[in-house]
C-alpha cells in the first residue's frame, strides 16, 4: 500500500515508517499539517495516518478538508488524546479508525492492513470462505467440509470478522470494537473465552486449524502457516 504518515514527532514517524516499510508498504512522512495536506491532495495514497496534534493545520481540520473535497481515502488517526469524546470526534470528523498513543506496533500494523483491505473490497460478498469453511451471510449458515456448524450469535460475529480479515492479524481490541461495540478493555479474558469456544466448534475434528493465535497480538484466520 502507499501510505502517507503525517506526524510531527520525528521518532514516532520514523518508527511507523520503518515498521510499515518492513511489511512491504511504501511510506512518505510529512512533518506538519500543511505539507501533509498538500501531499495528500496531490498524490494518490491508499491510507493516511494522521496525528491529531500537528503544527500548522491540525489533524481533524486536515481530514475534514480532504473529505470536503470528496476524498474517500481511509484515515487512521493517532493521538495522545485518549478520551472517548476525542475518539468520537475523530471518527465523526472523517476518520475511519483511531489509535491512541502509546500503541503497540502490532496493533498499528493490524489496523492499517484491515483498513487497507476494507478499502479495496468492492461489493460486499454474500459468501465468505477459506479452505473448506463456508459462511453464507444471506442464509446465515456456517459449514465446514459440508457439515453445518451451530454458532451462538456472538460466535457468529467473531467468525464473520475473522473471515472478512482472513490472512490478516486481528487484535483483541479490534474484536472488542467491532463485535462488542466497545473500546474498554475488560480485565478478564472476555475475547479469549469467546474465541476459544468458537474455534472449538470450527476447528476441532477438522484436521486443519484455521484460527491461529498470534502470541501477544491477536488472531489470524488462514489456511496453513
Amino acid at each position, binding site marked *: 500500500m502507499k501510505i502517507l504518515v503525517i506526524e510531527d514527532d520525528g521518532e514516532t514517524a520514523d518508527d511507523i515508517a520503518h515498521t510499515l516499510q518492513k511489511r512491504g508498504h511504501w511510506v512518505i512522512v510529512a512533518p506538519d499539517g500543511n505539507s501533509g495536506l498538500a501531499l495528500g491532495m496531490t498524490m494518490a495514497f491508499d491510507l493516511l495516518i494522521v496525528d491529531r496534534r500537528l503544527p500548522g493545520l491540525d489533524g481533524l481540520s486536515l481530514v475534514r478538508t480532504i473529505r470536503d473535497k470528496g476524498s474517500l481515502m481511509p484515515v487512521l488517526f493517532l493521538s495522545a488524546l485518549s*478520551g472517548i469524546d476525542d475518539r468520537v470526534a475523530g471518527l465523526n470528523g472523517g476518520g475511519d479508525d483511531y489509535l491512541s498513543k502509546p500503541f503497540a506496533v502490532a496493533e498499528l500494523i493490524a489496523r492499517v492492513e484491515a483498513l487497507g483491505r476494507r478499502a479495496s473490497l468492492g461489493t460486499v460478498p454474500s459468501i465468505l470462505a477459506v479452505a473448506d469453511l463456508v459462511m453464507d451471510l444471506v442464509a446465515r449458515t456456517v459449514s465446514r467440509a459440508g457439515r453445518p456448524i451451530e454458532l451462538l450469535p456472538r460466535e457468529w460475529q467473531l467468525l464473520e470478522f475473522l473471515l472478512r480479515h482472513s490472512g490478516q492479524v486481528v487484535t483483541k481490541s479490534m474484536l472488542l470494537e467491532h463485535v462488542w*461495540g*466497545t473500546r*474498554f478493555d475488560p*480485565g478478564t*479474558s*472476555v475475547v479469549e473465552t469467546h474465541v476459544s469456544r468458537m474455534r472449538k466448534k470450527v476447528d476441532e475434528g477438522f484436521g486443519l486449524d484455521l484460527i491461529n493465535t498470534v502470541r501477544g497480538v491477536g488472531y489470524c484466520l488462514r489456511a496453513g502457516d
Partner: protein
Amino acid sequence: MPWLIKPYMTTTFRLMLLYATTLIVVGGLLFGGMDWLVDSQMTRDLDKSVLERIDQLRLTDAQEGIKGVALIITRRTSEAVPMRYFYYLLQAPDGHRIAGNLPEMTPWTGWRELPLPEQGNWPEDEQSRHGLLAMGTRLDDGIFLVIAKDIFDLNVMKDRLHLSIAAGALFTLAAAVAGGILISAVFRRRLDAIANISREICHEGNLSRRIPLRGNNDEFDHLSGHINSMLERIESLMAGVRQVSDDIAHDLRTPLTRLRRRLENARSHAESVRDYEIAVERAIDESDTLLTTIGALLRIAQIESHLQRGNFGPVDLSAVVLTIVETFAPVAEDQGRTLRGIVAPTVVLPGGEGGDSDLLIQMLANLVENGLRHTPPGSTILLSLEPATGTRGPQIVVADDGPGIPAAERQKVFQRFYRLDASRTTSGNGLGLSLVAAVAKLHRIDIRMEDNHPGLRVVLCFGGARAPRLTGSPDGQIIP
C-alpha cells in the same frame, strides 16, 4: 463595620427611592384629583347660590318691577353684616346705579371675576384671598343686574388642601428616604456578615469554616445555608483530590519501582541476549500495566467531572444487562463459577437525559469481574434486572454467594486503589469499583452494598435524585 458598598448604591436603597417616587406621583395624582373635585363642587355651589338669587330677583322684577328689586337690594346691602358675601349692582341703561354695593361698570353678561370694593374691611393677611365671582345679566328695559359672591371660602379651602398635599408629599419623601436607609442598613448588616466571612474563608483558605445562621429561617439564613453547602462540597472535593493524589503517588510508585528494579537487574546480571530479551519483555508488560492503570484513572476522572454527558442517549437496560450476561457467562464458566441472569424485558433507563450504554456496560462488567475475582470456584453470581415499581425506578442486582465484604469496608471499597486486605494479592488494580462509583454518580444511580447471606449483594437503583441539603455552622442551628 466596614461598608463594602456605599449606602446609596445598594439595591434596597434604590428600590426604596423608586417606591417613594411612585408613592409621591400616585399621591400627587390622588390629592390633585381631590383638589379638583372639591374645587369644582364648591364652585358649583357658589354658582348655584348666585343663580338662585338672580332668578328670585327676576321674579320680583316681573311682579313688582324695578322698584321692588331695588328695594330688596337696598335692604340686603344695608344690613350691617360684618362678613358680607353677596354683592349687588342694579344699573340703569344710562349707567347710573339704582341700587347695590358694587361700583358702576360697563354691562356684560355671563360670569366674571371682580375685585372687592371694600378691600380695606378685611384683615390684611386675608385680603389676598378675597375676590368676587360675578354673574351679569340684563333685565327688562335694559336694566343691568350683577350678583357676585366672595370666593374667600373657596380660596381658604384650596390653600388648606395645597398645604396638606405639600405636607403629605414631603412626609412621604422623608419617610421613604429614612425607611430606605434603615432597611438598607439592616440588609447591609446581614449581607456584610456573610460577605465578610466568605472573604475571610477565601483569604485564609480555611474551608472547614461555615457561615453562622441566625436560626430564624429567613432568606439570609437560606442564603447562608446554601453557601455552607457549597463550602462543604468544595471541602470534600478538595479532600477527594488530595486523597486521589496520595493514592496515585503511592500506587503508581510501586509498579514503577518494580519496573526500574527489573531493568537494573538486567543491567547488572544479564549475561546473554536471551536474558536481555526476557528482561525487556517483562519491562514492557510492567509498563503496559502502568499505562492501563493510568488510563483507567484518567477515565474515572473524566467520568467524575461529568465530561461524558455529551454522549448520552436513550438506553435499553434490558439489552445492556443481557449483553453482560451473554458475554461473561462463558468467562465465568471457564473460571469454575456460574453467572446467571434474570432480566426483565423492555426496561429502559428512566429520566429524560438518557445515559451512556458503553459506560453502563463497563460498570456492570466491573461488578461482575469483581464478583468473579473475589469468590472461590463453585460460586454463583446472579445478575438481575427488575422493572420500575410504583415506589422506585428500575433496579439491577449483582449478587454472589462468596465471602462478601465486611460491613465496615463497604463504603471504602469505592475509593481508588482500595484493596481489601484479603485480596491484596489478587489481580486487578483496585480501580474497578471507583469506576463503578463514577459511572453510577454520572447516571444518578443509587448504589447499596448489602449482605447477601452469604456473600455480597450490590443493588443499583436507577432514577435517584438527591435534594440539596442545608447545613449550618457546627455551633449554629441546622436548618432541615
